[in-house]
């Protein structure tokens, strides 16, 4: 009890700090860059619930992210719904897709599951390309609501993203420490053995894919208001798939801190690289760091720290 209270307090403190930072109105660039990094914290955390805890590698991150974004676009187009509604709806729709993908795991495992999720992304992108109402292949400009809190809409989005990251990380931490997390760990190591021991593998997998889907959709929902122009190629960008996988790998997949560390490190490095060196280097950095970690520290930074401490 005391432990969960402390978690709650830490979470609230982070949200408070985020709001304070937003209210301070420092250099606006901080909010723009911060938004992208926090968005990756949510994405990496969400990916890790399925990929890290349950061991089902999902290459379809762009599908879930873009579905969240396009749900928001649809609602903006049809009803001009407020941001909280967009986020909830984005999470709901992506969560349903996650549930559907969960049933796929009945028949598909390992690399076959990964290929199926990759295909999912392409199928969804083709559907969006042919759906004129949300911009189709041409893309759609989204006009932000006027009079946002903190004076600027992106500052407001930054504060919202702080909140969403805290929620995502709290959910991940809760799953990890509960019987659900232990069950997922068991099925990651050996699904048949886990089933024999009485772990409800299908229910747990459905739970993991759904929660992961919800969080990815939630990360995508504010995206239209951030870029103000949504088109399929950038919404379904493969970068999201690569980063969602690379960030937890670098941070460490077994613990909730792993994706956060990975997202903050890699996200910040990418933001800095974009405005300092050329971006060809940008992708190169991700590649080199990923290979280095897989070879030298397969359990990520968290594993590395644990090993050093254990000595």
């Amino acid at each position, binding site marked *: 009890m005391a432990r969960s209270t402390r978690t709650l307090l830490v979470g609230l403190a982070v949200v408070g700090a985020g709001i304070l930072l937003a209210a301070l109105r420092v*250099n606006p660039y901080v909010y723009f860059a911060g938004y992208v990094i926090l968005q990756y914290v949510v994405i990496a955390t969400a990916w890790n619930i399925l990929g890290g805890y349950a061991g089902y590698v999902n290459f379809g991150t762009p599908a879930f992210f873009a579905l969240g974004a396009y749900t928001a676009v649809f609602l903006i187009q049809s009803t001009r719904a407020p941001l909280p509604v967009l986020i909830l709806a984005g999470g709901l729709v992506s969560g349903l897709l996650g549930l559907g993908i969960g049933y796929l795991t009945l028949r598909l495992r390992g690399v076959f599951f990964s290929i199926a999720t990759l295909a999912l992304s392409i199928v969804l992108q083709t559907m969006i390309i042919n759906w004129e109402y949300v911009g*189709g292949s041409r893309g759609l400009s989204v006009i932000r609501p006027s009079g946002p809190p903190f004076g600027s809409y992106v500052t407001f989005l930054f504060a919202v993203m702080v909140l969403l990251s805290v929620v995502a990380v709290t959910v991940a931490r809760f799953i990890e420490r509960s019987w659900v997390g232990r069950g997922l760990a068991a099925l990651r190591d050996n699904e048949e053995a886990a089933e024999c021991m009485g772990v409800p593998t299908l229910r747990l997998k459905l739970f993991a894919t759904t929660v992961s889907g919800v969080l990815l959709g939630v990360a995508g929902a504010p995206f239209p208001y951030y870029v103000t*122009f949504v088109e399929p190629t950038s919404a379904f960008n493969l970068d999201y798939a690569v980063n969602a996988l690379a960030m937890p790998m670098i941070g460490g997949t077994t613990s909730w801190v792993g994706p956060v560390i990975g997202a903050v490190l890699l996200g910040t490095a990418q933001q800095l690289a974009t405005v300092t060196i050329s971006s060809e280097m940008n992708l190169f950095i991700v590649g080199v760091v990923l290979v280095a970690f897989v070879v030298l520290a397969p359990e990520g930074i968290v594993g590395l720290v644990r090993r050093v401490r254990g000595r």
Partner: protein
Amino acid sequence: MKPQRIRRWALTGGVIGALVLAGLGAPTARAAEPIRIGFGMALTGGLSANGKPALLAVQIWKDDVNKRGGLLGRPVELVYYDDQTNPATVPGIYTKLLDVDKVDLVISGYGTNLIAPLMPIAMERKLTIMGMFGLANNEKYQYPNYFQIQPAGPDPQTSTAIGFFELAAKQTPRPQTVAIVGADAEYPQNALVGARELIKKFGFKTVYDRTYPPSTVDYTPIVRAIKATNADIVFVASYPPDSVGMLRAAHEVGLQPKIFGGGMVGLQFTSVMTSMGPMLNGVVNYDFWAPEPTMLAFPGIKEFLKEYQARAEKAGVDPLGYYLPPYSYALVQVLGQAVEATKSLDQQKLADYLRATEFNTVVGKVKFGKNGEWAKGRTLMVQYQKVHGTGIDQFRGPGKKVVLYPEELKSGAIVYPYSAAKN
């Protein structure tokens, strides 16, 4: 506290302190002297083959201006970042330019999708913004301080096709039936909408109207279907990979319409011209610039191209630079002229001047009109003629890409029908 914990806190404090200092320190690093122009540009990703030449053109302008003593007596400096052809990077890049680098003026990156996310930023801060080759970016916003250099004119949707169908309508015997085809993507869809409007206007009969997915690899079934309709006019709206695919398939299948081409992006690029060679003969296609005497008459263009071609070789970008670079140069030329004339960097004064003035540039006289587009469209229709082999040097001079439209820039006669020019 344990020493370990103290060290950890000191480290965290140090990092936060450094970040705060970096944030505070940025404005003081601002140099008072040079005029800084900021932009994002596609230096990697899908549009980089055009983004790099565009950057080179802007750099040449900067050097030209600085050789003459700069703007308002101050040297010009460029601050640019790679947008990776990804619209999602644009908000971050321009905020960095405006709030950290403190640039005085901004221009857009290359292409419609990279201009779109810049519009709200420009409007929020009331900036004067120059757009580089965007199609109808301002139609939704109608922002008065946006100016766009692609000569599409006030009606961007029909601008690609108008010359093509006007030419077709003038030929004898007059063609009757039309086949239109294009990719499921942003530009081709726009061009097809315009084409349908023009077909109605000129009273042609549509016998084929289909689109194909951008990932298509084999174009022969599409071309066979078009051939089966026996259409007199074949209008294609395509991006570079499919332009090449369609043209190859047309030759394989032996497509023989009376007039062929229209809105094929990519045929203008040097790399495509030198790989397609004689297959281009007879194609009537849109273009923005060709080394014809009528286009070389504009002041400064020859000097610009000489400089560009010398530097392009070293930079490893498009060696001829006939499509986008003259317009990229003209874009900053216009902005520079506005700064000189108003003797100011005030965004509103610049916009007022840009709206009211006719500019003399390397691509001719530029006057902005509705939505910041050219007051009068000037998309060229050219026909490839007498292309032999795949050598690059033949494309340097006139006669290979003859300008047929508009009338005032016409440099030769159309070879009609298509089959007569084919070989």
